[in-house]
């Protein structure tokens, strides 16, 4: 793997850019591997990287039915933050955010972590009260959250709708300064390149269609569109299709899949310097380094596996953006797309052993697992290698659905109630 640097760019400039190595190989599948990860999204690739780097369990493959990074990792709105309410979440997501801060160096690939801050707006006195509860929880959890007043909010982000008579006037906001954005493709590519360099086989365009299990029920390998591939351990990191893959392995998961849409405007000169969002309005956005305003909102209102999204949701989300920033009304939408996200009952992930010996789960990220990729990969590698949960993810097991020990972040964030 040739190293990336300004110097390498200069050298290649003079040399006609002929000296760049492939970022990853395109190997043929071996007949068997020690560990197979299904799903070459951020989580699958980061897991393979950590396995190969720290645990060296033998031969590792990451299998994807499409091109690597083509699932939600390449479709999300790129927001990273750790402003969670519950301690379990705060510890985990903050670890992830800290890993992101040094990931460019770790992977020698610029993932463009931009700590531009993230604002969650409050539109009434009661919402401010609620945000105080959340901010205090975060501060006790050691997270850099702050509660801003109306004037501070408008000073920090002048394009916001400052009209006191707006439909949803601004009363204040919660801010996490270390929150921001990360270039999504770079995360997938950076991990893929680093994992490949450590000998991981990334098998693209290889769809898993079934599992082979021995008489005792343990996993023996996976059936794929390119034939059977043996494996001692199999990790599932297939996001929106987790329930589909689990069904192939013979068990059910407590998740439901929905379409989640994102939208980007034409590129414009810098105008929005932070991430803004409002739970009441139901929309959020940030400006990409390329200049497009990247917008998101809630999931589509019905479960689906179709990666398209409903037009009604698009209308609502974009109208919500105009509520947030009225001058964006004349900004034009360039592209809309959708990913399939798998939601658990408490909107927290599942990182655990599955009911089938040898099969492990890293699923249920819903609409928020991009920010979790570095820590998710680390924890999942630990789980697969040691067959026991990483200390940061013991709360995120399947058992919690039996015990009722849910970590209901969506409700805690005031979306449910």
């Amino acid at each position, binding site marked *: 793997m040739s190293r990336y640097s300004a110097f390498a760019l200069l050298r290649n400039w003079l040399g006609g850019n002929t000296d760049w190595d*492939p970022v990853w190989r395109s190997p043929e599948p071996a007949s068997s591997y020690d560990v197979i990860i299904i799903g070459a999204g951020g989580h699958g690739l980061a897991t393979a990287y950590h396995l190969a780097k720290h645990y060296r369990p033998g031969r590792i493959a990451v299998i994807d039915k499409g091109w690597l990074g083509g699932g939600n990792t390449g479709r999300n709105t790129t927001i990273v933050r750790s402003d969670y309410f519950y301690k379990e979440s705060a510890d985990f997501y903050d670890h992830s955010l800290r890993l992101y801060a040094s990931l460019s160096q770790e992977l020698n690939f610029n993932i463009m972590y931009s700590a531009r801050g993230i604002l969650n707006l409050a539109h009434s006195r009661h919402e401010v009260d*609620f945000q105080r509860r959340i901010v205090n929880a975060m501060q006790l959890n050691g997270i850099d959250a702050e509660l801003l007043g109306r004037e501070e909010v408008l000073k920090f982000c002048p394009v916001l709708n400052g009209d006191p008579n707006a439909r949803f006037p601004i009363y204040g906001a919660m801010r996490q300064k270390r929150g921001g954005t990360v270039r999504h493709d770079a995360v997938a590519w950076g991990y893929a390149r680093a994992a490949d360099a450590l000998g991981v086989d990334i098998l693209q365009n290889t769809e898993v269609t079934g599992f082979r299990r021995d008489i005792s029920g343990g996993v023996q390998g996976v059936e794929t569109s390119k034939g059977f591939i043996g494996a001692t351990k199999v990790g599932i990191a297939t996001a929106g299709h987790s329930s589909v893959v689990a069904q192939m392995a013979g068990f059910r998961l407590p998740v439901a899949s929905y379409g989640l849409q994102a939208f980007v405007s034409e590129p414009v*000169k810098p105008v929005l310097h932070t991430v803004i969002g409002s739970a009441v309005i139901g929309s959020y956005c940030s400006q990409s380094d390329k200049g497009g305003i990247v917008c998101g909102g809630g999931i589509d209102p019905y479960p689906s596996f179709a990666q398209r999204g409903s*037009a009604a949701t698009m209308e609502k989300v974009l109208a919500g953006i105009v509520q947030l920033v009225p001058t964006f009304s004349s900004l034009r939408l360039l592209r*809309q797309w959708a990913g399939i996200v798998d939601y658990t009952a408490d909107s927290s992930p599942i990182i655990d052993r599955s009911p089938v010996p040898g099969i492990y789960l890293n699923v249920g990220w819903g609409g928020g697992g991009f920010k979790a990729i570095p820590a998710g990969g680390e924890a999942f590698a630990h789980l697969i290698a040691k067959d026991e949960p990483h200390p940061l993810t013991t709360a995120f097991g399947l058992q919690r659905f*039996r015990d009722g020990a849910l970590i209901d972040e969506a409700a805690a964030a005031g979306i449910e109630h």
Partner: protein
Amino acid sequence: MTGYRLSHGGGRIDRGQSIDFSFNGKRYAGLAGDTLASALLANGVQLVGRSFKLHRPRGIVGAGCEETNALVQLEHGISSIPNVQATMIALEEGLVARSINAWPSLTWDIAGVNDRLRGLFSAGFYYKTFMWPDWHWFEWLIRRAAGLGKVPVVPDPQRYEARHVECDLLVIGGGRRGLAAAAQAARDGKSVLLVDLDQGLPSLEGVRTFEKTAALGIWDHGFVLAASEGRVIHRIRAEQIILATGKQERGIAFANNDLPGIMLAGAIGRYVADYAVAPGRSGIFFVNNDLGWRSAIEAAQCGVGVRAIVDARPQVLPELAHRARAHGIDLFFSSLVRSAHGRGRVTGVTIEKPDGLSRLACDFVGVSGGWNPASQLWTMAGGQTKFNERSQSFQPDGLVANVEWAGPEPIEAEPIWTVHGGDEKTMFVDFQTDVTVADIKLAARENYRSVEHLKRYTVLGMGVDQGKLSSVPGAMILAETIGAEPGTLSASKVRPPFVPTAFGLIGADLRGERFRPRRYLPAHEWHVREGAVFEDFGWERPAAYPVGGEDIQAAAEREAAAVRSGVGLFDGSPLGKILVAGPEAAAFLDRVYVGTPSTLKPGRIRYGLVLNENGTILDDGVYARLQDGSFLLSPSSAFADRMVRLLEDLLQCEWPMDVVVQDVTEQYAVWTVAGPNARNVLEALQPSFVLSSERFPHLSVREGQLDGSEVRIQRVSFSGELSYEIQVPAGQAVQMGDALMAAGKPYGLVPYGIEALEILRIEKGYIHVGTDTDSETQPGDIGFGGAIAKKQSDFLGRRALTRRSSLSPNRKQLVGLTSLCGGILPVGGHVRAPSGQSGGFVTSSQFSPVLGRGVALGLVEQGQRRLGEIVEIVSLGKRWQARISETVAYDREGGRLDT
């Protein structure tokens, strides 16, 4: 300055009507019917913009929505629209447009130096550097360089409109095929709608036609969004859709193919025929298909100087060759344009002939690299495509529900995507985003070999034109580079909208207040009259009725005190009112509520909790049994809508029982009269029923007349005082409010708002679900464990209450919290646990005027076992000492309910 207006011809222009406009601060004149692009060309303006990354000078290349270079900022006074294609702007008197992404000026653009460094700014260079010391050192610079136009600084002055349209058949595209399909369907008696980007379509009998209208995308079940003139959005529901969207021309990548003056051949044909505009005086056409010849010949026929046609193919139809020669055009077969020359505009080309290279001078070039079907909408609808060898294009294939492809026959074309031998770093595939053949080869070398990787790594097709010109050539060049069979790599996925569309237009009817219309109380005017200060609590509700310069807090304390000492009047209209009736109504509600509605006697009321499957409290509220088989539920205001949905969901999806649910929340207003004098006030209005506690006890309901109006009265209390909730038809709300105020005058009746109600309920320890409970709170946590133990039958959430975490001793429980210094505790402050972590939090807090101190509720770990304990509360860096206490701070025995 090379373009000019021809002395005759031009189907779309009106030579009698001159139109003044300005571009980059200079004044020009065009003609009625011109687009900004045709007018600029006619005025000899060749340089119209700079490219995204390299800031290379660029001119107009197309004539329609495929235009990739000519983006302008369209200015209307202080407002403006960024990145509009000049080819899509109808010229108007006084129009003002500017180039974007150039500084200080279009001709002298400092960032033009980027072009010198183009080897450095290769595809994806930013992934490989800017990592040390930190991306933040560089990001601002990159951001400043990126982006095209500017977002206006003032609100969008445009008035947008949304319309709903239904039809049997929607025809998209008003060309020959579209018109024929529409006419035929109309003759067959169908309701037909035809939309087209263009104007001047023939009118067809029985066909509605929307001109200047872009279909943006096709969603499930024949749903289509279409935008007219950027101002009206049509939400079209069509039984059947015919796509007659025609074809789009593509270019060929040769060195310096982006010089101003190099255009699509078909676009030149359109400028000449429609606008009588010649792009120059001496042109060369570089083609690989017959239609390219036709463009050249038509231009020559109209008097444009066409010097040569360079065709990659060895021969052409004799008829075409004959006609071209008749116009004095030189013909070169089996030949290619290898590179273009010029500084800032094309002045000549080098052609590669079978017998060697030669140089020809020219001032414009028309390129035709073949034709793609305009299949974007087809793929958006989920349609597949198949590679067609003859035309070197991806043709729609297979079936899509409700959608039919009626595109043109594929146009035969020679496979020629790049002309080798030139500098690949100047062979542009995507003009706007500066993606060159060198970039594609670099991506291939680095193994970004999926077309989606290619797109993301090089930003091919990510421009404002969404790759209409570049996606297919890009995929084909990638295939060629990696030695894949042509056609095995199709272009990257196309997404809605087909053309860029304003956010404001997409959400046209959700603008401003209409985003979520405010809900007003039936007696809103009454409250205004009484001096209410309103706040949005899902409804516009009086927070308080300040008098004499009071703030809300002072007013609320005065109002609350008045309720405790005399009597108050509260508008509780948003309270949910849901009728549940039918033979199985009682059995159904037994499954919904934690309590047992079936044991309730008609005329009586009970308080109940509703849980979700996790045992979490969703809502609390009372329900009344009106008759044996009918109940009236009163979920809290915030939950009313969701309660209806929950009940319907249970009936329709879980338990098909003989029950009907009817939401009558908005049909009735509710006036609550509360306080020791409440009965006296009602007494004064001639009730048709006895009000004494024996005959009308607490927690019962009566129907009858009050002040001559039909009313339903529930004796329930959210204040702890004697209290009557009077339901009247919404239309009589004001009248009843007036009557109650008048009747209450002798008793000092005051209207009270939400804030006073908060004080009253917190004093009494009455919870507000969602405020004093969270996603974990179960009945046992708020002291309702007993009710459940007694209940025999199953109910929603019951199983969850026996799970391990429900039985844990460490649960957060509802308690009162009393500040040791008597002050008001901060809502949202946390109880600090010995570990330093959160041990719970303050959920509600107010100053109690009757007690003369602060009162608060909170969820505290193991709270009910820790009564009397002193805890530290922290909030935003400050601390308080508080004692854990009973939830009820006032009138613990509840004697005041029944004075």
